[in-house]
């Protein structure tokens, strides 16, 4: 924790300590728990964060069907956040998340980008860059195929710095 941690574009903490690989889970709540624990361990969020993310996911789901694959971007209100950060979760097998804005849609999610955001406009550039990664075919597939945490962290950091 603190100023030594890498911040992408000066906006958001992210490095290999916030990458969770080989996620074996049956439900989206298990996935959220595993990734949120990394956020908690690294001091990015308050203890209340994992439960708050799960509760919010039930009301406002975050599954997105993209060109490459299904992803989810679970997050919650700023009151549970200590530092703006992103955690990356890569799943061994797809897990169903409900579609964002489409409560009747189930999406097979393979990669999760968990966000902790304190105030909207401070992370604007990184959010825009993230959307660009989502929209460009092939990038998520490359990320999904990373074998180590460092490889995944370096690749995502490179994509977001383009």
């Amino acid at each position, binding site marked *: 924790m603190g100023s030594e941690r890498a911040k992408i574009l000066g906006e958001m903490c992210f490095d290999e300590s916030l990458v969770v690989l080989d996620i074996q889970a049956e439900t989206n709540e298990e996935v959220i728990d595993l990734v949120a624990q990394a956020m908690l361990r690294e001091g990015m969020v308050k203890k209340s964060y994992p439960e708050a993310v799960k509760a919010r996911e039930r009301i406002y789901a975050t599954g997105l069907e993209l*060109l490459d694959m299904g992803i989810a971007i679970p997050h919650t209100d700023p009151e549970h956040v200590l530092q703006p950060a992103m955690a990356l979760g890569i799943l061994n097998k797809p897990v169903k998340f409900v579609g964002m804005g489409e409560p009747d849609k189930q999406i097979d999610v393979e990669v999760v980008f968990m*966000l902790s955001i304190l105030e*909207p406009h401070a992370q*604007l550039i990184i*959010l825009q860059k993230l*959307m660009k990664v*989502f929209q460009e075919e092939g990038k998520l597939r490359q990320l999904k195929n990373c074998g180590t945490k460092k490889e995944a962290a370096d690749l995502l950091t490179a994509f977001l710095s383009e």
Partner: protein
Amino acid sequence: MKKTKKILVSCGTGVATSTAVKQKLAEMLARKGYGPDKVELGQCRVSELANYADSYDLIISTAALPPNIKTPYILGLPFLTGIGVDKVLDQIIDIIKI
């Protein structure tokens, strides 16, 4: 005198996806000649929509809307996924056309 049209962008927390959608929408509208002088963009969380919706011409949301909102509404997902975004932009321009 031309009246400015107002679009409200909403999402579950009002911090993440609505921020990204609002930015993308502003860029795309400006490119079509609908800059900030013609279209005013607001942002809120879905739970606050009932307080603001009446003073807007259109709502773009990434989360399902609460009942009783009478303002026209479009799902904002294409601005996140890029899939079908040009079609949605055309729909939006149709609604806000002055």
